[in-house]
């Protein structure tokens, strides 16, 4: 056993040295690319096809509004990373503040999405059932919104725990890191969606 233990030390480099949950989260996130990739592909395929019932999503976008809510989500990544940083400095108060700020910014984004969907349906006249491009738009942004919603719930849970226990323990610190990874990921997916789906979208020739 002693000999084995001595030899063990030489083999230590094999272990990845990464916590199970952190590795698991990254592994999971890597598969999410395929998830959102399928949704974006789906949208790209349909948004440019002529002959659908109007309107196409790109006809009724409100770019200034979406830019604003995108900006909120982008800045929530900053508050998220500041929360993580505050916890690393053992500044529990700041951690709580930044957590709440992140959840708030996430909620702003979600609220924006609810508003946008409502506008599109009532004013723009584009429903899920209008045409395949509209279906694809709602499915894509809807699933992204669902991810944000889960993120907000997780952030609020962390905030709740922190309030109730007076602090976030070291174990919760890892939880915070994991929620952060998830949150940033949702943000980078939106960076792609904002560019590809909103800014680069057009309507097929002959429409509009």
């Amino acid at each position, binding site marked *: 056993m002693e000999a084995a233990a001595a030899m063990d030390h030489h083999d230590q480099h094999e272990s*990845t*040295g*990464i*916590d199970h949950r*952190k*590795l698991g989260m*990254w*592994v999971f*996130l*890597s*598969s*999410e*690319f*395929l998830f*959102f*990739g*399928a949704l*974006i*592909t789906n949208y*790209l*395929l349909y948004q*440019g096809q002529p002959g659908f019932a109007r309107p196409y999503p790109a006809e009724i976008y409100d*770019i*200034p509004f979406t*830019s604003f809510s*995108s*900006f909120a989500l*982008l*800045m929530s*990544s*900053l508050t*998220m*990373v*500041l929360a993580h*940083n505050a916890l*690393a400095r053992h500044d529990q108060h700041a951690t709580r503040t930044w957590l709440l700020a992140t959840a708030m910014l996430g909620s702003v984004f979600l609220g924006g999405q609810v508003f946008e969907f409502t506008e599109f349906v009532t004013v723009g006249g584009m429903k899920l059932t209008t045409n395949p491009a509209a279906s694809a738009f709602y499915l894509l942004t809807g699933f992204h919104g669902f991810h944000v919603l889960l993120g907000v719930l997780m952030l609020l849970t962390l905030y709740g725990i922190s309030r109730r226990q007076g602090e976030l323990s*070291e*174990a919760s*610190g*890892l939880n915070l890191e994991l929620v*952060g*990874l998830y949150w*940033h*990921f949702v*943000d*980078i997916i939106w*960076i*792609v969606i*904002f*560019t*590809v789906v909103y*800014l*680069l979208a057009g309507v097929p020739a002959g429409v509009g």
Partner: protein
Amino acid sequence: MATHPGEHHHPTPLQYVKIAILLAVLTIIEVALFYVNEAADMGGWDAPLLIILALFKFVIVVGWYMHLRFEDSTLSKFFTAGFILALILYAIVLLAFGVIALGS
């Protein structure tokens, strides 16, 4: 766990804020590009520019906010594997549908 060797290299809050400002500026450029293209057609040049800008933002968030730059390479291998695989597979699908075309 919190005392991971990589933690030392993490940026400071100030650096995080600077990064956020950079991200904000990039976003403003993106939206501006969109309107420039609306006003005067850029002849298809908007697409590559916007994609490059988005990728730039993407890399910044992943690298610094998600600390991927400072992590064990196993994690970045997984992450890039998923990203590249998705990119290739869906590019082929879009090619098959003629949504994107090679050499045109």
